[in-house]
């Protein structure tokens, strides 16, 4: 398949594309070639220029220089709609469809079959069902789109785009919020489309998925093209080198040996659980120890974290801190006992984008002290400066709105927010999600450092390598229950997979 793809003439040919934002050169003479019937991964760290490239190709942004040709004909789309008409469709991570309309209406919005101005509902549903059957999707097309999973919504979005005669399909991080089954379903769809001659650009942070599905890889770094390679001829390490452009001094795969004496327990939970949410579990968190929560998406990792932090109220079991039983009914209780929680959805649950870095950092501390004891501006400045230095937040400007920082630096500011409250226990939910590889390693280093200062950490991550890298113990979850625990000597990707067990584990192990 790869040789034939090589022989085909380019479907989408981008030459010498440049784009600047004020002084910042976001794209510098970038070439990109997409052949019909191939799945082409577009990779790069945050700020490499992936999204700018996509926006310029799809007409969302105007280009400064360069050409884009589709099937040998030059095109200059001025809007996403024009690009779509030309045959280039984009499906974003957040599905841009209408959850309140039916699946059929979403597929045919603006082009419903009508008779005398009246929409022929039956005809539309029949066509919609037929169209989706082509994607092996047999669902009730009259149900609201929002009642289906994100994966199905993605397939519907793709089906709509392709049906609108798209020949180039750009998928921007489509798998970020999908679980394993859903990713597979999406991949099946992608393979089917590629077989029909559609060229697919696949943007993702998941390297495993790149190797699983893509034929070819293009890597961008700092707005420049680094190279285009056949996936099969590009070892993973080389790929990471292309993306980072430097030797990885601390590879995340490497498991550091942590010398450790028997640590004092910090918080423990006994038979802690909530019906219909997560099965009762026992969990002990010790000072100076990182406990990793491993499991598939939806296995109960976030649920555990929310229960531990009091964001959900447990209906069984007891919690105790430093050996004393405590009441844990709300996040307020948790904060009073010195717990901190960095949630998974950084953008919606974590940062307040309009506020400055300083204001974001002091938020939790102020909340803990209560409204009667405001932090003086001097204290605030002092705290912000200390954490910006400690965590190396860049740019080191406490008065910058946090929304303007990169994902990695936002995450560090969130960490700073909780560290400022001098917590005894910090819960981190996917601390490295959506962060580029460089910042990734830094966050992991930070986690280890914090732990060495005697903090107890509970960390959730989908990336097993990462969990292995920083955990002293790993708790494995499956189907909303804690199913196993691995101590320091037993931690490793294979052993975690074995613990996740059953059919899923076997499949993932095969890929890993």
């Amino acid at each position, binding site marked *: 398949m790869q040789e034939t793809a090589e022989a085909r003439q380019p479907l989408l040919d981008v030459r010498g594309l440049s784009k600047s934002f004020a002084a910042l050169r976001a794209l510098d003479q970038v070439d990109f070639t997409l052949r019909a019937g191939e799945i082409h991964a577009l990779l790069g760290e945050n700020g490499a220029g992936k999204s700018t490239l996509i926006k310029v190709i799809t007409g969302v942004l105007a280009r400064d220089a360069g050409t884009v040709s589709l099937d040998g004909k030059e095109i200059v789309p001025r809007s996403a709609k024009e690009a779509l008409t030309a045959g280039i469709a984009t499906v974003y991570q957040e599905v841009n469809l209408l959850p*309140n309309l039916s699946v059929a209406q979403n597929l045919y*919005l603006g082009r419903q079959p009508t008779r005398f101005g009246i*929409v022929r*509902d039956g005809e539309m549903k029949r066509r919609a069902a037929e169209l989706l059957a082509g994607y092996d999707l047999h669902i009730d097309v009259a149900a*609201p789109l*929002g009642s289906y*999973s994100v994966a199905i919504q993605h397939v519907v979005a793709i089906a709509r785009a392709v049906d609108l005669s798209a020949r180039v399909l750009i998928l921007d991080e489509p798998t970020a919020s999908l679980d394993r*089954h859903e990713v597979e*379903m999406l991949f099946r769809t992608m393979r089917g489309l590629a077989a029909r001659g559609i060229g697919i650009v696949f943007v993702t942070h998941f390297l495993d998925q790149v190797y699983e599905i893509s034929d070819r890889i293009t890597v961008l770094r700092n707005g420049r093209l680094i190279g285009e390679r056949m996936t099969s001829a590009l070892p993973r390490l080389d790929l990471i080198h292309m993306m980072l452009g430097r030797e990885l001094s601390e590879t995340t795969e490497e498991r550091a040996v942590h010398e450790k004496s028997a640590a004092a327990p910090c918080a423990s939970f006994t038979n802690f659980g909530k019906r219909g949410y997560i099965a009762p579990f026992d969990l002990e968190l010790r000072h100076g120890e990182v406990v990793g929560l491993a499991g598939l998406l939806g296995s109960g990792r976030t649920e555990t974290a929310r229960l531990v932090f009091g964001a959900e109220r447990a209906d069984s079991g007891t919690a105790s801190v430093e050996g004393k039983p405590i009441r844990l009914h709300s996040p307020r209780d948790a904060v009073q006992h010195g717990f901190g929680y960095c949630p998974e959805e950084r953008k919606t649950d974590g940062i307040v984008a309009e506020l400055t870095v300083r204001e974001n950092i002091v938020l939790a501390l102020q909340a803990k002290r209560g409204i009667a004891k405001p932090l003086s501006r001097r204290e605030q400045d002092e705290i912000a400066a200390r954490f910006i230095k400690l965590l190396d937040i860049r740019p080191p400007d406490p008065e910058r709105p946090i929304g303007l920082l990169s994902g990695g630096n936002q995450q560090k500011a969130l960490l700073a927010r909780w560290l400022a409250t001098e917590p005894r226990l910090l819960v981190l939910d996917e601390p490295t999600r959506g962060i580029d590889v460089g910042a990734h390693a830094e966050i992991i280093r930070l986690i280890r450092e914090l732990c060495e200062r005697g903090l107890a950490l509970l960390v959730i991550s989908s990336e097993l390598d990462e969990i292995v890298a920083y955990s002293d113990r790993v708790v494995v979850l499956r189907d909303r229950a804690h199913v196993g625990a691995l101590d320091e000597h037993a931690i490793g990707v294979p052993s975690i997979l074995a613990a996740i067990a059953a059919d899923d584990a076997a499949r993932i192990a095969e890929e890993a």
Partner: protein
Amino acid sequence: MRRPSPVMITALVFVAGFVICSLQFPNFASTRVVANLLTDNAFLGVVAIGMTFVIISGGIDLSVGSVIGFSTVFVALTTEKLGLPPLLAFAILLVLCAAFGAAMGAVIHVFDMPPFIVTLAGMFLARGISFLMSTESTPITAPLYSAVSDFGIALPGGGRLTAIALIMLAVVAFGSILLHFTRFGTNVYAMGGNRTATALMGVEIGSMTVRIYMLSSVLAGLAGIVFSFYTAAGYSLSAVGVELDTIAAVVIGGTLLSGGQGTAIGTFIGVLIQGLIQTYINFDGTLSSWWTKIATGVLLFAFIALQQGMVRLAGRSRAIRAGGVT
């Protein structure tokens, strides 16, 4: 497709209310009461259908009460003072209303301003103009008016289906078809669901916004005509605060105030529920008519709470479904 449950609840409330009234007052369950209910609330029904489109599309139109007031004055002055034939006056009025609504829609879209502010300005503007034209109540004496008020389809049991009731029923039917069975209607839902996504899917948001507010203003103008039939007069102070009654009727009818969900028939029943409360108070005779407002307020609150609950429930069932399908 569109969840029918909120409408079902509205309908149940109406039926329950009607049964309670009938049990309390022996003469209540009659075609006379029903026909009067339709006649007395005809103008509200007409304007509420327009409001339904606006709210489902994610907007709001505060100008409708003032537009009704303006319309009654306009019709009264043009027929009485200028001697225009009523039908010609109606035609001119509706064109003016269309232009007024289109202008509001255009401002909302082009300047990307909140509909609340733009239509609030429209409300003051329309009311101000009607005061400028006349501050007194002008009786309308055109022969068409007496002909219309004499017209009525006799119902068994003494009820009389009046012309204005028929106009409202026609508007409800027209609104239902437009909302539920045309591309225009689907686009209205789409805009209320997610404006950006709707635009990305190729719907001309600008022209849709203009047309939606145009529809609302035209129906408000028509409601003004109906109101002038009902009172046989034009008065610049008429229909003050009707925009709020209208919004209440739409929300009680099961339309989500944040947009994206709702039905025309629900709005119709919402109007009837408000009328029913008023009728109950009339039958009772001892209650102050302000109890209508209190009862409407309580109902409104109940329905908004109910919708919140249903939205939350829908979220839960979504999670379950997602698990089931994969």
